[in-house]
């Protein structure tokens, strides 16, 4: 998927810097701020809404809002373009 419009809501106040969200992201959306010890959601347009960052966050700091319409089905018929 490219150019998706999934949204990521991050509540930095409760983040304990465990880094699990950073490790779990398999598409390099999440980078790590070594000074703040917090994630940076740098390439959100590449998010594939796997939800692992949200699921693994013990403090419930991350919320993914998927936008399925921004994912292309790529079929030729008009209704799927």
């Amino acid at each position, binding site marked *: *998927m*490219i*150019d998706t419009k999934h949204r990521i809501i991050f509540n930095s106040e409760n983040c304990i810097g465990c880094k699990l969200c*950073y*490790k*779990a*992201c*398999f*598409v*390099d959306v999440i*980078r790590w701020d070594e000074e703040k010890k917090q994630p940076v959601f*740098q*390439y959100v347009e590449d998010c*594939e*809404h*796997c*939800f*692992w960052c*949200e*699921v693994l966050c013990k403090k419930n700091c991350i919320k993914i809002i*998927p936008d*399925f319409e921004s*994912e*292309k*089905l*790529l*079929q*030729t*018929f008009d*209704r*799927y373009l």
Partner: protein
Amino acid sequence: MDTYERENISADVLIIGGGIAGLAAALSVKEINPDLDILIVEKQTAGYSGKACRGGGVLQYFDLHKIKPEQFVEYHVHNIGCYLGDQDLLFKYVSMNNHMLDKLVEWGAKLPKRADGSYAVIPTGPMTAMIGVDLDITIKLRRTAEKTGVRFLDKVAVSDLLTTDNSIAGATGYSIIDGTFYTFNAKSVILATGSQNYRIGPMWGSGRGDGIAAAYRAGAEMRNPEFGNFAQLVRVKSHREVVFGENYMYNQLGEHITKNFRSGPEPDISSTAIAEWFTQMSMAKGPIVLKPEESGGNSIYTIWDRPYGEPFWKINEQWADKADGDDWEVCPLFIGEQSPVKVGHDMQTTIPGLYAIGDTSYCGSALAGAVPAPPGRNRGSGILNAVFSGIMCAQSAADNASNAPLPPVDKNQVEECFTSAFTPLWRDSGCDAKDVIRYIQKAVGPMERSVYLSDHRIATAMKYVEKAKELSVSMKANNFHELLACHEANAMVLSAEMQFRAADMRIESRGWFLREDYPEMDNKNWLKWIIVKKEGDTMKLGTEDVPYEKWPVKPQF
């Protein structure tokens, strides 16, 4: 130009890719020779990468008390592999089923059991069954590997392989975080980088073909690239897959269209289901819907107790339910799963010392014949093929690494790889990698160009591939994240070119491979594998006869 940090690292065995296959290979090599220095390099984070940790979490199971391996081989050759599979290799795969499950448990994976201690097996047909596995399988294997001394280097993308005198010598790559350029020197190199999925499907279709492209550029032969065209029915609002949905498809006239392509039970989705969807849509009888009341309930997520994966499946289901509501319209989504690196039974490629395992070489090993990489019409074969090939490569990779000195590295070759890898960063301007990927997706995405083929439609697809190829020489990257996208886009161009050129060559239909203009299987002329190889700057295609005479299950003429 050269302002990047550089680092040279040597290892006895270099494993590229930290998913289930790479981890299984590392553990297997360590069991053979604990003294070997093994390094796993992963472009994201090993243990969290690959598809084993974001799929359905199922393992194919054979009850070897009830069926003999040769019975499954016979069934598979006739019904799925259609005489292109290596029957000896498939026999080994089935025979090793219990051994592989035991190994996974030994390495730390959690396989749910019943109260009596037996595996919680769910039958999926007369020949096969499946067992659940929790999705922390790769994390568990990574931890076990770390305890045995395996080293890990995360967030480093391998861009090229190094050879000396036509044998493997190592690889080059770069940190996607800070751009440090790495030169790896190794005696054995194992590619475990997954398949090619062209960034279309989410989740488990995560392979982007970079390892396949690196092997091709280094001179390794490819086999069966035309079988890189897996597709799956998905619900159109949420795009979640509907496993076994092809059994209850209806058109807008209320006609049960499954009976047009299926007369009895089949193992899984087939390309004929995709072709039927396309035909119905073309006749304006769509959209195609499922009747869920006929499914018999197909959620596999609640069958087993799998506490780690449960919240992952649950949240995906919740969002998908919200998007779909009562809408059961379906259409196919291209997945791909091209896995063409040619290997022998020891998973060694045509480059001595270079091995390819898991989804990188599923079709290239000819394990399953005329069907794309796992699931390959057998759910649960992905993880087990990864474990199987990891075990199968271990002895040869360990022997090679135990008995030889580190091969010399050609410094000029390293500099060429460095320049080639970083060129998109140095261009003043150029196109975005996604511009290239869009053209590739136009070529492979529509079902009539990738799954239900014809001469004309392959030609149309090739025009898009040519356009992508033309653009790819001017890609511009502004940072290392975009640089990785450029490399993946190049790999997609290469994969698509070999997929369509091989598809154009195979003028028949066989197994998953389906051509509207050549609908029959042609055993007289096409008991052949298509082989692809780089010669100079040219992609050369040829064929190799399938040695069916030496195997027990014979084709009919």
